[in-house]
């Protein structure tokens, strides 16, 4: 037997270089510190050295915000029909299958009912790993249902955005979701039900230009990319370099587009405080006791 014979097939040379310690250590993209993954996870996926907020998936989001990681998922049974039968270099239908296999979700959002510091709330959390968190008919429908559910049940709604915008592969149908969700938010507004929009890295395009900017409060995680047009498109249009920190949370706060930039560790407490402030039942109580 030869010593160096390859036993099985070709080596997989695609993708990133994988080392044996993969999964144990992570390098912070921001400060280049090597962090033990467990430390990072215990710190809510925020770099302990420089406070960079790593992207997290929708389920982790729900776990961070809802009491005891207890929640009930709803509207998880909707799938895209691929209305345009869109094919570019790859068929959209196969991209969908791949994303479904990778994330275990049917599309780029999870609706959940749970409690936040004891208060019943509805959360729609977007999943960036699913085709860039892009919004097609299903994402539009699921978020609209969450809003309608909140409107009917009078439970505050929190939408956590993480999306590149409307999903190109569903064309104008995706665009119409902006109008649909915004219309549902108009009704929510008239029903006086609180809506907290949480913007995370990244929130751009049609998602920013619709529900993400329509919260009673719009709050963002530190350092998140938030904007309408992508930075590259802007650079090509104006033909000049963009300033440092352009379209980051802090930039938007400075320009008056956000109510607050809140650290992931304080996010739940901040939302809880806001919901307390917006609670109408306590207003009535005080008025009647006076």
């Amino acid at each position, binding site marked *: 037997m030869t010593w160096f014979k390859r036993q099985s097939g070709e080596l997989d040379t695609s993708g990133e270089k994988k080392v044996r310690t993969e999964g144990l250590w992570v390098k912070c993209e921001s400060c280049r510190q090597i962090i033990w993954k467990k430390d990072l996870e215990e710190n809510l996926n925020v770099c302990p050295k420089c406070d960079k907020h790593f992207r997290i998936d929708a389920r982790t989001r729900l776990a961070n915000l809802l009491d005891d990681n207890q929640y009930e998922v709803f509207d*998880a*049974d*909707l*799938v*895209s*029909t691929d*209305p*345009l039968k*869109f094919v*570019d*270099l790859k068929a959209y239908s196969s991209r969908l299958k791949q994303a479904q296999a990778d994330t275990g979700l*049917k599309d780029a959002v999870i609706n959940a009912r749970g409690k936040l510091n004891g208060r019943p709330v509805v959360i729609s959390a977007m999943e960036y790993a699913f085709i860039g968190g892009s919004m097609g*008919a*299903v994402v*539009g*429908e699921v978020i*609209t249902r969450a809003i309608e559910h909140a409107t009917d049940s009078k439970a505050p709604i929190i939408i956590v955005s993480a999306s590149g915008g*409307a*999903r*190109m592969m*569903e*064309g*104008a*149908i*995706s*665009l*119409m*979701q*902006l*109008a*649909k969700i*915004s*219309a*549902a*938010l108009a*009704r929510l*507004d*008239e029903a006086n039900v609180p809506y907290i929009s949480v913007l995370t890295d990244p929130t751009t*395009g*049609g998602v*920013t*230009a*619709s*529900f*993400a*900017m*329509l919260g009673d409060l719009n709050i963002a995680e530190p350092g998140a990319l938030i*904007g*309408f*047009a992508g930075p590259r*498109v*802007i650079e090509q*249009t*104006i033909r000049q370099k*963009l300033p440092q920190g*352009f*379209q980051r949370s802090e930039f938007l706060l400075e*320009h*008056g*587009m956000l109510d607050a930039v809140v650290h992931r560790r304080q996010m739940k407490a901040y939302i809880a405080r806001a919901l307390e402030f917006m609670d109408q039942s306590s207003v009535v109580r005080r008025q009647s006791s006076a």
Partner: protein
Amino acid sequence: MKAVPAVANPALVVTSADFLLSMVEARWTARNGDGSKMETGIRAQQELEKIEQQIAKLQAAPGQNEETRGQIQQLRDRIHALRQQVSLHRNAWEKTELARHPQRPYTLDYVERIFTDWSEIHGDRGFADDPAIVCGMARFHGEDVMVIGHQKARDTKQKVYRNFGMPNPEGYRKALRAMKIAEKWGRPVLTFVDTPGAYPGLGAEERGQAEAIARNLREMARLRVPIITTITGEGGSGGALAIAVADRVLMMENTIYSVISPEGCASIMWRDATKKDLAAQALHITAKDLSELGCIDDIVPEPEGGAHLDHEAAAALLDEALVKHFAQVRALPAAELVASRYNKFRHMAQFLQVEA
């Protein structure tokens, strides 16, 4: 004064027109016969226009006999037939080129032809007046309405002034302010969409382009007066939708409405901006596509060859469509109007319900 060009030999002109026309016909048939790209609709269009000019000259010239007149009529019939063929087979990219045609009528061209008593209103009361969107009070067949539309321009200086029809946030805020005025005084809103998109600039981001668009979407959804939108050229994504959440959305025959430009889609999905015709096809952006997807309510016909060839005829056809829809939405009480607008957009979705 320039003399009418003498037509030395009418028979020669007829023969040359006949020859040119056969060339166009032959190429057109070849293209559609085997599906190869011999010819784009725009080129056929331009050649037909040239031949038509020749014939017009001939007709204006004195000294025609019965025979020439008959030949001219034959030529005209052939051009007409070919035009119909071209428009029937016009693909998504060719429609995109037509939608962007520099001679297409723009909002103010329609205002001039369809409305009376136009008084423009300016400014967002916060930052600036955006010339890329025009707003104004006008009368539509005697009724007071608010007109809002993107405005493009034809010469360089004006193009820059109008920012190529790409609004900044203040444009959308001005539009919303105009809509609120219309709501307060119970006047219907008519909007005209023709924009490559909301302007992707540094200042636009600083001043909240996304917020301006988002707010318009929400407020239009609950505006208590009728809204009719017509896509008159390019319906460029969020920048178009921000004045298009309407009870009736009409698209003119040779216009597009898309979530991204074909070029943008091609450079992202194909990593090659020259694949724009493939992208245009894949995105389903023509009036027919949007109607089939249930995103628009009606298609407005254009004069033969396209709106750019005859502004008067285009305006007349649009006027006819607007009158019809105006009467329908005007009849509804406000609450019913808002509810049916909500339901219309609420049901714009296609999805399957499966076992979770």
